[in-house]
């Protein structure tokens, strides 16, 4: 990889077809390191499918995904994670019968660290995120919002270059949304990763994102700076208007 070129994660004309049904068609998107890119659109617009493609969970039917200029054909999710693309999931997907610390620690072990090193990094990360008090609690006993934060911690281990967050604020109160917004800002500031944020809450999106990419019916409807997209007629009709 050429060190002079800042690494980016890019979907190039990606299409995904499920049983003849197009989930997304010809979507191109580039996530640069250090930026926060919002991915919005109505339900069923293909946001999660796109994130799945960008993280190796879904093979594009057409088009390709590049990481820092490298083609990622045949990479699985574990390969993306090793190469520095981490993600969270709707609903957390934590190991529910393991402690919070073990949840984060096992990520390090799977990525090749020793138990001791993985545990040290996991503890530091939980401290940094201010959730060290849950370290020895079973992940399955956490309330939703804390579960979300542990999911983010698990993704942040080993300092990924890119962090894909799938609806991290879903079901959160205004106050919790503010805390999450602050956390995402700090993650960008201190870890410097590029963050892709799928989110329905427009206050969170507009408050955080440098750029916004709008999907509708599997196609790119608009993209640009957050303020521009907010005033885009087509976006208002398709999405924002529908929200009231």
């Amino acid at each position, binding site marked *: 990889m050429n060190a002079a070129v800042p690494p980016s994660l890019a979907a190039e004309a990606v299409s995904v077809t499920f049983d003849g049904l197009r989930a997304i068609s010809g979507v191109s998107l580039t996530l640069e390191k250090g930026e926060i890119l919002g991915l919005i659109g109505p339900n069923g617009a293909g946001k999660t499918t796109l994130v799945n493609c960008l993280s190796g969970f879904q093979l594009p039917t057409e088009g390709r995904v590049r990481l820092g200029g490298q083609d990622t054909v045949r990479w699985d999710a574990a390969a993306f994670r090793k190469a520095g693309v981490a993600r969270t999931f709707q609903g957390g997907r934590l190991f*529910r019968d393991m402690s919070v610390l073990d949840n984060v620690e*096992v990520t390090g072990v*799977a*990525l090749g660290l020793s138990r001791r090193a993985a545990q040290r990094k996991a503890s530091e990360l939980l401290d940094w995120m201010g959730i060290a008090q849950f370290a020895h609690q079973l*992940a399955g006993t956490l309330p939703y919002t804390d579960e979300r934060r542990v999911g983010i911690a698990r993704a942040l281990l080993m300092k990924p270059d890119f962090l894909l967050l799938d609806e991290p604020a879903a079901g959160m109160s205004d106050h919790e949304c503010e805390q999450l917004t602050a956390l995402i800002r700090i993650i960008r500031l201190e870890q410097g990763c590029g963050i892709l944020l799928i989110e329905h809450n427009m206050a969170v999106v507009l408050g955080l994102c440098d750029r916004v990419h709008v999907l509708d019916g599997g196609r790119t409807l608009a993209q640009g700076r957050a303020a521009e997209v907010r005033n885009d007629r087509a976006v208002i009709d398709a999405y924002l208007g529908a929200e009231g």
Partner: protein
Amino acid sequence: MIHFLQTLIDALSLGSLYALAALGIGLLFGIMRLINFAHGDFVALSAYALILPSTDVVSTLFIGSLSWPLLIAAILTFGVVVALLSNFAVFRRMRTASPQNLMVVSFALGYVIQNLIMTVYGARPKALGLWSSLTQVIDVGGLRVPLLQLVTIGVTAGLLLGLLLFMRKTPFGIQMRAAADDFRMARFLGVRADFVIALSFAISGLLAGVVSLLFVVQTGVLAPTMASDIVIFAFIATVVGGMGSLPGAVLGGLLVGAASSLLQAYLPDGIRAFRDVFVFLFVIALLLVRPSGIIRLKQFEERV
């Protein structure tokens, strides 16, 4: 009082045997949702490895003639190899199969092993005297205890502790726990699926080897279906304890063993022959109260 203590040691020793077998089944269920009914046949095959392959009525010792440390190492290795071979020949090719299909395949594999035993060793039960010194009864403060029961309890306690440390402290253990919790997610994170599954089969086979030795010393008989009952009770133990939970499998095994021994000791003479009916009634009652078993895992809970 003495009688009660003796019954208690009976209970603990039978429960230990069930617990070890239940662990062998529970491990594989946890990782790949396989209810392995061939586990009993792993036990039987490991026991038969003690004697020379022949259909003669009289058994001739083979591995069984080795000195005890070598014998133990050989039989445990044999159990591990049988389990690993089953994985590579059968279960590895069925990674995406449903739990029902996996279970049916395990039945089929069990019958294959049973018939293999009948072909190679003959269908008739064979007497086998192994380590008869262990069957002596020792006197502990008025308590007359077969040495083998103490050995069984001790070996089980040691294995449980070893397995606990393995699961808690080693990099393999933490990856196995993650895989048992959410296999797909663990894989996505980079946990090596093939390796973790093979490791579970190996441990399961090792436990089958231990059970085969303890059981054969206790009964002194080899038969193609010798471990069928153990595996049924062990399976019930995993259900009672809570499917997928290893501590649950151990608890369930101890509980089913204890119920069996206590009923054996205290049922009136006339109905003692129907002991198992009462064991199963107890199991049904327990499952009516706690349908998901004693330990209910978070991973199986409905999300609200």
